[in-house]
């Protein structure tokens, strides 16, 4: 019953954002929705942008803890650019507060693939980030994504640094992905393991579909009268 009610609320909030977004009365609903996103590991960029806009229209009603939560959720959405989309709407004075400076630094490290610096900084700010479940896994997924764009075969230490795992934890991680994501492990002469990532169009250019030469269905329909 409680779960049904939960589904009901989020459906309504997202509907509100689609139908009546420029409405100061939905501010409280949107704030509740942010907390719901955090606790149930959901995410809606549009609802959060809507809330940030309302804060922009009425700065006295801004709640910095809510904004911090929105930003953390946005970080977790990487490689999508949600974090900077949110920052565009947050005034400079607010951005210069400690917790936001930290989040901006974290985003900077992720954007520039400086994973070791990133995880070090995370360790110094556990309280801020542990309040959002799923943070660790989301960043690991981003790290794997960037590695998959770049590498056909990645050396173990590089992967280890990117996802902040060592020893047994790393082995378990590898086992999981070998079983479920098409990864493979190669032994390299006298050096560390090599992890073979599944081929995609970014790390295997021959797989790149020559998309620009494919013709959309809509265009083909134009010659149907001719063909008949």
């Amino acid at each position, binding site marked *: 019953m409680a779960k049904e009610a939960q589904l009901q609320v989020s459906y309504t909030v997202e509907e509100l954002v689609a139908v009546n977004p420029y409405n100061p009365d939905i501010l409280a609903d949107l704030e509740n929705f942010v907390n719901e996103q955090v606790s149930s590991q959901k995410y809606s960029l549009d609802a959060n942008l809507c809330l940030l806009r309302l804060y922009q229209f009425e700065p006295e009603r801004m709640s910095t803890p809510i904004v911090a939560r929105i930003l953390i959720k946005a970080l977790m959405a990487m490689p999508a650019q949600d974090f900077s989309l949110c920052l565009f709407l947050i005034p400079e004075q607010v951005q210069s507060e400690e917790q936001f400076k930290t989040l901006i630094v974290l985003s900077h490290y992720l954007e520039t693939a400086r994973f070791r610096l990133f995880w070090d900084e995370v360790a110094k700010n556990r309280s801020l980030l542990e309040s959002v479940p799923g943070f660790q896994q989301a960043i690991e997924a981003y790290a794997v994504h*960037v590695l998959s*764009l*770049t590498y056909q*075969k990645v050396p173990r230490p590089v992967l280890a640094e990117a996802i902040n795992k060592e020893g047994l934890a790393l082995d378990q991680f590898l086992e999981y992905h070998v079983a479920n994501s098409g990864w493979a492990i190669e032994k390299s002469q006298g050096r560390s393991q090599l992890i073979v990532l599944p081929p995609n169009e*970014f790390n295997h250019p021959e797989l790149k579909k020559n998309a620009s030469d494919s013709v959309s269905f809509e265009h083909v329909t134009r*010659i149907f009268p001719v063909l008949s």
Partner: protein
Amino acid sequence: MAAYDADSSAGGDLAYDPNFVPDSVKTFVVHLYRQIREKNVYEIHQMYEGSFNRLTDRMFRESPWPTAEAVAPYVDGDHVFCLLYREMWFRHVYARLTPTPKQRVESWDNYCSLFGVVLHGVVNMQLPNQWLWDMVDEFVYQFQSYCQYRAKLKTKTEEELQLLRHFDQAWNVYGVLNYLQALVEKSNIIQILEREKEGLEQFTAVDGYDYQGGSNVLKMLGYYSMIGLLRVHCLLGDYRTGLKCMAPIDLSQQGVYTSVIGSHISTIYHYGFANLMLRRYGDAIREFNKMLLYILKYKQYHQKSPQYDQILKKNEQMYALLAVCLSLCPQLKLVDENVSTQLKEKYNDKMTKMQRYDDEASTVYDELFSYGCPKFITPSAPVLDEPLTNYNQEAYRLQLKMFLFEVKQQQLLAGIRSFLKIYSTITVTKLAQFMDVDEATLRTILMTYKHKMHSTDNDGKIVSNADIDFYVDDDTVHVVEAKPTKRFGDYFLRQILKFEEMISELEKVQLD
């Protein structure tokens, strides 16, 4: 209604009598009123663009037109006509004079009444698209102007502050957005465009006009409001929502948005800018390129138009933004030759500087961004009691700061591109040596390049913007040359249709 304050800052024609209606104005309003009643769109357009501007040049260069109250007797006191006339009246004041604070507020009231009438669905006119576009465009412009005006508090007189306190609802951001949204919804324009795709509705083919005796006003105001919403969201810094508002319009085709040049330019300019901020450089470059090519070809036909200056200004801004996009994402093949020539003439030096990614580059990015960007606004109501400051630059400074931060992150990629151009294979160790960094840093740079050169589109799909690409196999970098793609499919389709046309033409020929 507003009496023109003879001693206010709005022009200096002390001989102006707001109630005096010269004969030529009498004739003008009588004729315009009749044409509107008879729905002669072509004549209305001639009078709106032609006669109005000629009369302005002749008699109202430095003073407003006669008030709506003064002309009302000549048009049967028609309420809607007076609203339309007043809208033109205020637009003229903004264009040629400086509006007084009171006039700004009254213009807002007029828009509320005008849109109110349209939203009630009781309007039965057909007006030229140019006029309807100008209404929406001006509405957003006056909003932007008011936000700038009320953010400069330092030099305000007590009288002006009182006015701001009293008329605190004028040009409030909720009102502006909700009117635009209401026009979009009430006009059903999104459904109309969807039905058109399925062949169930004629819209683009008739340029939005109604040939069944109905009115095009609500429909077209709804259509143009989508572009208005894109613009307002850009001014607020919410690029994603702005693009969403515009999504029902298909930019890959001609449409109603292209038939009025002002709306065409505004659409592409804001669409391109939003994509630039969303790091979708490829999309931005493509659209800017198309628009600049169009302007190059057709601007001569608009030389006499009152919008000519605006067209030229936007043209220059788009070149600046294009230069920025190409420096961040060198995809010169996306740019037409003629546009490229113009671009080089204007910005060759600056583009070279930007691609060096040093401190000097930052200055150039700053300069071009500041020139090309929209006039961002702070939408919230001013705080009128504490020490009065000017904060009209705050919004712009924030967007600039965010943009330059992104540029700085891409500074890391400065050296790598030139090396990728030379080598087809190179070890990580060697490349690190050449770039004078340690291996770990190089690997970081390689990953940053990949991340920055790939953007996420609206469906979450990863799209590559890279001109040069590579992959890494353990400790070796393999560079991939981007092959120039030959678009056979499209070419054949076009030729098939062309030949079909020719054949049917030939079949019509009768030989005696």
